[in-house]
Structures are given as structure tokens and as C-alpha cells.
């Protein structure tokens, strides 16, 4: 496996050392309560407070927003966020709660936000003080995102918003939402504009947030209803009618294909957190009886486990090769595969784990006889969140076919 430290620039090497020194004494202890698989399933204030405290302290130490300009609360460094992420992962930190803010809102604000807006909003976003959510999908607009109908009616210097957004993760904790709105009903893509709108401060004053229950039984995402919410035109990002272009920046970053590396921590092995990866799968196979012997000794299962290991390793190696233009046939080719592969490989790994577990795979969270505390069925079902959200796997294949292979567009 690569030792990334060996290729650091001087700035990166110094920064890496700073991260290591700080993390040695400041990586938080595991909480006494259960944390969900990701920030998208945060359910309780207790979970949120623990994770927000972590993000705040990591931000104060300079590990969040490192590559953003100092004027907007960033660290003013170059190519250092990746270093911070690697070190936080190595130190087994918790994940950060404001992932939509960090991964999607921040790079979009940086590119399209007005100066005052960036100075005001970005530091609070990096610190986790303001949680962000994303208002793109609607009941009638999923894969065909540009068909959104939530409408902003011009009213002097303000806009009045009416409509319905769905699958809105973190909306129940959010201060702000990035939102794709229709400002012109006569044209499709060209009738869209992009805004940031307040959520928590506007509850019961034009905004209502209602939880939706996932198939896993968890909450964490919501529907958000807008009834005559009035917002200032100063909250618009990009020109009127250019919402689709602005949304493209957001989506590229959401799919790990943007220019800015998303601040991302993780690695903490919470007793109740279970990632659908092959290390955990192999662990399960060693501890499961299958046809009278350890599952790990069954030749067919060995073959299938190795398929997963090979693809998982390839995904890591794709990340590495992305940084080496000499070995790329097309500049965006690997980055645009990232989200698709990550979600599908995890799904296959979790599906295989259920087969390895056999009859025990029927046991769910809370059953005392369930392998890995019933986390595998949860992990498997959760992977569908990832193959559907942020552009379904089918949409990802369209994008790859059209942008990279230049095949005829689906419209």
C-alpha cells in the first residue's frame, strides 16, 4: 500500500506533522452511545452535539477548510486537506456532522457566492456551528433533476418560494439549505436559479421540516415544505437562470469529482458502526460456520470474497492513479467513476456478507444472537442510499457514457 507521506511537498510535510501532533492528544474518546453509519443518519441531539464538538475542535486546530482562503475562515494552504483527511483517518477520529456543508455547499459558495456571504457563512460552516442541507430532489424530480418545480416568484428585491423538497438529509438540524429553484417556467435548464435559504430560523415562517423513515427504520432525512418563504435576492448564487451550472459544481463535489478535496474525517471503530468492507467481511467469514466448517475455508466463498477484495483495492488504487495524469486516458474518467464504484462495491460486499452469515443474516439490530450485532443487514440496506442518492448508478453511467465516452446524450 502507498505511503503517501513519502511524496509530500515541504508545506504538506510540515502540515502533516502538525496534524499528527494535534491528533495525538485531541482525538476524542469513543462515545458511550451508538453512532450511526454516517452523518446522514444522525438522529439524536446527543449524537449531534458529540460530532459538532469534534468538528469545532478540528476546525480550531486548522484541519478543516485548510485549502480555502484565510479571508473566508480557511487555512490558506494548498493541497493540504487531503493530508488532514489521511491523518484524521489514521488517528481514527469520528466523522464530521456537517458533511453536506463541507462537501457541497462550501465549494459552491466559494465559486459563486458574493464576498460578504462567503465571509459570513463559510467560517460558521467549517466550524460546524451552522449545519447545512441540500434541496435538490422533489417528489416529481429525481434522476431528471432539471425538471424541479419548486418556484421562486420575484417580488421586488425579494423572492417568494413555494414547493416541496424531499430526501433532505440533516434538514432537521440545518441552519441553511442550498436549493435549486425554478425562476422561469418557460424553459427547463435555463429556468433554474440557485439560492441559499434559511431553514432553522424560518421554521413555521414559511418552512416546515417533516422526517421521513428509511427502510432501515432510521430517520435522518426529511421532506421540506416551502409556503410563501420570502428571501432576499442577495442569497442567490450565480446569475439568474444559471442555476444548472451552479448545481453542476455542487454535484461534482458531491460525487468526489470536484476540484476541492472535501474535509472528511473518520476511522473511529465505534462498537456499533459497521462498514461494508472486505476486512469486516473476512472477519465475519472467519467466525461463521458454513457447511460444517469455517466459511473462510469454503472454496466458492473464498473466490467471491477475493472478487470483493480485488475491486476494493482497485478503487483505492484508482484514487492514487487519479493523481497521475500520465496514466489517465481522460482527465475526468476516474473521478466520475468514484461514487458509482464506491457505492456498488460496498453493496456487493454487504450482500455477500449476508450470504456468508446464512440463516443468521435474518437477525437484525437488537437481536442478541445476531452476528456483528445485526449490523450487516443494516449495512446492506444502507448501501441503497448510496446507489440512489447523489445521482443513481444509472444516471452515473449516463454521465460516464456521455462525458467520457462521448456517446449520444439521453437529454
Amino acid at each position, binding site marked *: 500500500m502507498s505511503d503517501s507521506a513519502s511524496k509530500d511537498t515541504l508545506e504538506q510535510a510540515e502540515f502533516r506533522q502538525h496534524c499528527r501532533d494535534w491528533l495525538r492528544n485531541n482525538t476524542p474518546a469513543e462515545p458511550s452511545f451508538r453512532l450511526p453509519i454516517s452523518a446522514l443518519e444522525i438522529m439524536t441531539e446527543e449524537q449531534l452535539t458529540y460530532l459538532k464538538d469534534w468538528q469545532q475542535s478540528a476546525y480550531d486546530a486548522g484541519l478543516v477548510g485548510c485549502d480555502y482562503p484565510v479571508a473566508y475562515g480557511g487555512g490558506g494552504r494548498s493541497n493540504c486537506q487531503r493530508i488532514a483527511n489521511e491523518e484524521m483517518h489514521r488517528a481514527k477520529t469520528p466523522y464530521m456532522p456537517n458533511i453536506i456543508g463541507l462537501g457541497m455547499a462550501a465549494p459552491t459558495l466559494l465559486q459563486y457566492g458574493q464576498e460578504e456571504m462567503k465571509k459570513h457563512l463559510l467560517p460558521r460552516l467549517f466550524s460546524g456551528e451552522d449545519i447545512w442541507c441540500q434541496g435538490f430532489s422533489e417528489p416529481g424530480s429525481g434522476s431528471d433533476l432539471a425538471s424541479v418545480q419548486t418556484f421562486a416568484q420575484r417580488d421586488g428585491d425579494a423572492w417568494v418560494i413555494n414547493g416541496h423538497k424531499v430526501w433532505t438529509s440533516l434538514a432537521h438540524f440545518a441552519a441553511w439549505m442550498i436549493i435549486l429553484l425554478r425562476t422561469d417556467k418557460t424553459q427547463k435548464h435555463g429556468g433554474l436559479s440557485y439560492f441559499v435559504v434559511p431553514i432553522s430560523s424560518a421554521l413555521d415562517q414559511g418552512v416546515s421540516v417533516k422526517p421521513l423513515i428509511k427502510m432501515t427504520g432510521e430517520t435522518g432525512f426529511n421532506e421540506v415544505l416551502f409556503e410563501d418563504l420570502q428571501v432576499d435576492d442577495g442569497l442567490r448564487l450565480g446569475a439568474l437562470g444559471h442555476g444548472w451550472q451552479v448545481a453542476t459544481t455542487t454535484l461534482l463535489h458531491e460525487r468526489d469529482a470536484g476540484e476541492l478535496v472535501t474535509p472528511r474525517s473518520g476511522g473511529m471503530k465505534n462498537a456499533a458502526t459497521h462498514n461494508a468492507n472486505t476486512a469486516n467481511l473476512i472477519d465475519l467469514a472467519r467466525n461463521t460456520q458454513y457447511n460444517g466448517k469455517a466459511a473462510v475455508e469454503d472454496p466458492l466463498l473464498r473466490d467471491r470474497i477475493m472478487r470483493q477484495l480485488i475491486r476494493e483495492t482497485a478503487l483505492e488504487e484508482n484514487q492514487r492513479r487519479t493523481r497521475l495524469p500520465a496514466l489517465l486516458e481522460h482527465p475526468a474518467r476516474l473521478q466520475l467513476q468514484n461514487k458509482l464504484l464506491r457505492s456498488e462495491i460496498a453493496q456487493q460486499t454487504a450482500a455477500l456478507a449476508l450470504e456468508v452469515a446464512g440463516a443468521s443474516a435474518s437477525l437484525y439490530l437488537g437481536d442478541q444472537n445476531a452476528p456483528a450485532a445485526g449490523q450487516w443487514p443494516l449495512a446492506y440496506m444502507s448501501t441503497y442510499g448510496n446507489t440512489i442518492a447523489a445521482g443513481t448508478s444509472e444516471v452515473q453511467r449516463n454521465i*460516464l457514457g456521455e462525458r467520457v465516452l462521448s456517446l449520444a446524450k439521453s437529454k
Partner: protein
Amino acid sequence: MAQPDDYGFSEEASLLKDSARKFFKNNFSTDKLHQMVADNPDSSKPPESPWDKELWQQLLELGWTLLAVPESAQGLGLPAVAVAGLVEEAGRAAFPCPLLATLNATYVLAACGDSGNAALKEIAEGATATLALTNRTGSWLPQDTEVRVTDRKLNGTAWFVQDARKVDRLLVCAKKDTGHSLYWVASDASGITVHADRIVDLTRDQAHVEFLNVEAEEVCEDGLKALEQAFPAIWTMLAADVIGAAEWQLQTTTEYARTRTQFERPIGFFQAVKHPLVDVMIQIDEAKSLVYNAACAIDHEPQRAAEYAHMAKASASETAAFASSRSVQFHGGIGYTWECFVQLYFKRQKHSQLLWGDAAWHRARLADIVLGEIG
């Protein structure tokens, strides 16, 4: 030893890969390949081994067979990642030549220690070579060789010998009373008969080679040890060839899907065509990332080279099968003809898919490393 993040793929390696690509683009079109190897579809004709020796001579003059030869034997001792880049381009061109065969022999000889040096110097001076160690059942385990050595003479037959009719030398694994040793012998030496096989792949030749009291020079006492050390490079270089060829298949088929019109649309519009082409690309990229990781391990992390090379060849074998299948299918009726170029790559890839172990073979060995052998 840890791997460098950039695979150790230097500026020099990048230039070498680019110049190889240009060389084939300028000198060896697919049209030329088709004329050379597929001028006569008659399957009752004797097996042939057409190749462009003049062009190969140019490659020798460019020093291509020197690249992997250690500096101690007057070679250039380039890292495996740089060699893989070159092989990827030769695969993209499906260029019939003994490059892979000679590289295989080079890596084995380099693992022989000082006793391999004289043979390596011959390679450095332009000699080509191939490995002769597979038995009649196609076992990829060299200890299963059918060739025996008694009184310093080789007897028996080596099967599935690659590009046997193009090479000057054979590197033979033969069983002794105790253990297995490696022998270096001219391919036209007295007592050697090269029986050409009729094979599917038109871009390579293959033979079974019969040894009858052949005097040969022992170049390595513990042959299995040298082979074990060299196998990761052998698997990785073949996988590099496969991803180059697969990229040709992807680009050619994609181009066809952009231009061929049915139902008033280019067929690439339809997701039944578009999505599988994307999946071919994804498989190529996974295999390619694994190839460079494995090559880098050969250079920097030898203790894990076998593990990563198993991954690379398993992934490349699956890629070869899938890219080939979709290339013919999406070319439709024309793809099923002798005249269409995709058949050349289809056949080459089917050969590469199984050569030196197919995907399941490599996954089984990977499992032995990662999960432990089954008790």
C-alpha cells in the same frame, strides 16, 4: 519498503510510454496487422507466425529488450512500472513480437543471481527468448514440467510455449533427481523440434517443444525459487498487455457506437449499449490501477508483489473477457465477420485471459495468501 504515491512512474517512464504509443501509431496500424495475420482465413492451412521482423529490429535498436535487463548485465534496469507502460502500448497495438516472452525470460534470469548474467547479456545484445515449462495439461505450476534432465541432457516436451517460433533462445524448467533447474538453450539446437500449435490467437504463435537428448547449459540450480520470484512480473506484464488491448477494444467499439445509426439514433444513445460500454471502461480502469500497483510492488514492496500481481491478472483476465464479448456484440453483424478488426483483439484477449492463469486461478492463490491455505 513502502510504495511511492506516484508508483515511481517517472518522467522518463512517461516519455517511454508516449514514444511507444507514437511508434505503433506511426508504424503499425490495425489495418496493417489485419493484412499481415489475417490475409487467409483458411483454417486447414499450416500454422503460420507472420510478424514484422524489420519493425522488431527497430525496437531492438531502440533498446526495448534492454529495458528490464539489470545494469549488472549491461541492461538499463528500468523499474517494472516503466516496462509496464511500454507493454501496455504494445498490447494496444496487438503487435506480434516476442516482447513479452523475452521480458518473461529476462525477469526469471534476473532472479537467478550471477548464474543468469551470461544469458542476460545475450538478451542485452538483442537475443530473444521464451519460457518452456508448462506441461501437456496446461499446469501453470512449473514443478509440473514434463521435461527431465539426466546427464546434463534435456528430454521430454514443453507445452504452450509462447512465440516459440520467433525466439532465439529457450529458458527451460526441467526436473532433476532432486529439484528443478533452469536451462538456457538455442531454440534451433540439435535435438529440439518445435511443433507449431494451431491456435485461436492470430497475433501470437504457440508451440509444443520436444527435447531429445538436448545438451543445455544450467543457468539456475534452484529453478522454482527463481520462477517464484519472477512470476509477479510475468503476471503483471501480461495484465499490462491486456489493458492496452482492452483500451483499443473500448475506443474502437465506442467509436462504432457513436457512428452506427439504427432507429434514427446512434446506437450509443441506447442504454443497453451505453451502460455496458461504461462497465467495460470501469473494468479496464480497475485492472489498470491494479497493474501499476503490482508493478510498483515489484519495484518497491517485493514481499507483497505476488499478492498484488494476482489481483492485477485476475482483474485483467475478467476485463479481457468482458471487453472482447462487448466489442463483437456491439459491432453487430459486421463484428462477426473475418474482415472486421475486432476479431483480432477478441482472439488475442481470449488467449491472454487464460495464459499464466485465468481469473479464478489467481483468485484462489490470492485467497491462500490473504485468508491462509485451506487446512
